């Protein structure tokens, strides 16, 4: 009986939190992220590091979303750093649903950024937003820190061709 009650409470909590995980969002760890970043599908990868609390990140999101839907042979990965400050993923899930984001959203779940930032990008200070463009075909990669302006992504894509 007690177990059943707990089950009901948990279910209620799930319901209350607005529950649903969007199909294009999931939690990953660093080794999953680095393996995704090194996979060679033939597509150019645009990896954007962001968080729901980061105003310049939110401002540049439409540029990334637009690229994701319009550009062929380009995969956009939105890597959320929200879990670094808040272990509850619901805020990100709600954001993804509300904004109807189409790109793949990956919530990086890693503690102690000082131990892993180098493995993602040695020149990254850790400040958000930051964007990495990788062409597995040419092996070229370009990294920028700070808010993307209109046309910047296209310029980065041209440079990794």
């Amino acid at each position, binding site marked *: 009986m007690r177990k059943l009650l707990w089950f009901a409470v948990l279910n209620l909590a799930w319901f209350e939190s607005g529950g649903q995980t969007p199909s294009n969002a999931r939690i990953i760890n660093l080794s999953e992220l680095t393996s995704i970043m090194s996979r060679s599908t033939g597509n150019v990868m645009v990896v954007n590091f962001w968080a729901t609390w980061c105003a310049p990140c939110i401002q540049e999101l439409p540029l990334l979303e637009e690229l994701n839907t319009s550009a062929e042979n380009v995969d956009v990965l939105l890597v959320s750093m929200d879990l670094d400050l808040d272990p509850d993923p619901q805020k990100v899930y709600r954001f993804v649903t509300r904004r109807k984001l189409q790109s793949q959203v990956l919530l990086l779940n890693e503690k*102690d*950024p000082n131990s892993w930032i*180098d493995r993602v990008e040695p020149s990254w*200070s*850790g*400040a*958000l*937003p930051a964007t990495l463009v990788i062409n597995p075909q040419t092996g070229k990669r370009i990294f920028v820190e700070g*808010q993307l302006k209109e046309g910047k992504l296209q310029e980065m894509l041209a440079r990794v061709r």
Partner: protein
Amino acid sequence: MKKKKNLLLLTAALAALMAFTPPRGYELGDRVENFKLKNVDGKMVSLADYKDQKGVILIFDCNTCPYSKAYNDRIIALHKKYEPKGFPVITINANDPNMSPGDSFDEMVARAKSKNYTFPYLFDETQEVARAFGATNTPHVYLLAKSGNDFVVSYIGAIDNSPQKADAADKRYVEDAIEALLAGKAVPTQKTRAVGCGIKYRNA
């Protein structure tokens, strides 16, 4: 005539280079130039005012960044613990208030008052000091140690390795660095990186 043109081109190229190359900023072991900025009480504070201290915990910080909020009480605690030992805290906000309205001078005054700051919270309006240091995020610590008449950069990076909870940190970088300096030992970890809010630089 040709020479003059070449010189002009060279100057233009140099100017372009300076405009597009981000400042390298201070590195470990660098001697820090003096600076003078306005504090929340309206008075000017300069690094030279601290010449009789053993060092300074200089922190680029702001009101609005969630990391700054998460670390706010830890910064206050650092000052409480290390000011008596000769390492007081100085905080500097360099965010452009046009890009981040919550980081205006008036908002800084309000924050310092509500949290009873007993250390300076300086406004780097021109962003020159933050650029000189090469500060990127908030909070971004530069631990300065007095060496002769100079302040020398002895640690750059995060306060500890647990933004979520202070008591979950198993590496307290700034405290470890100061304890090492006080004991006359080498700083164990001299440079760290952390996820954080980028400083809102104009024309960045």
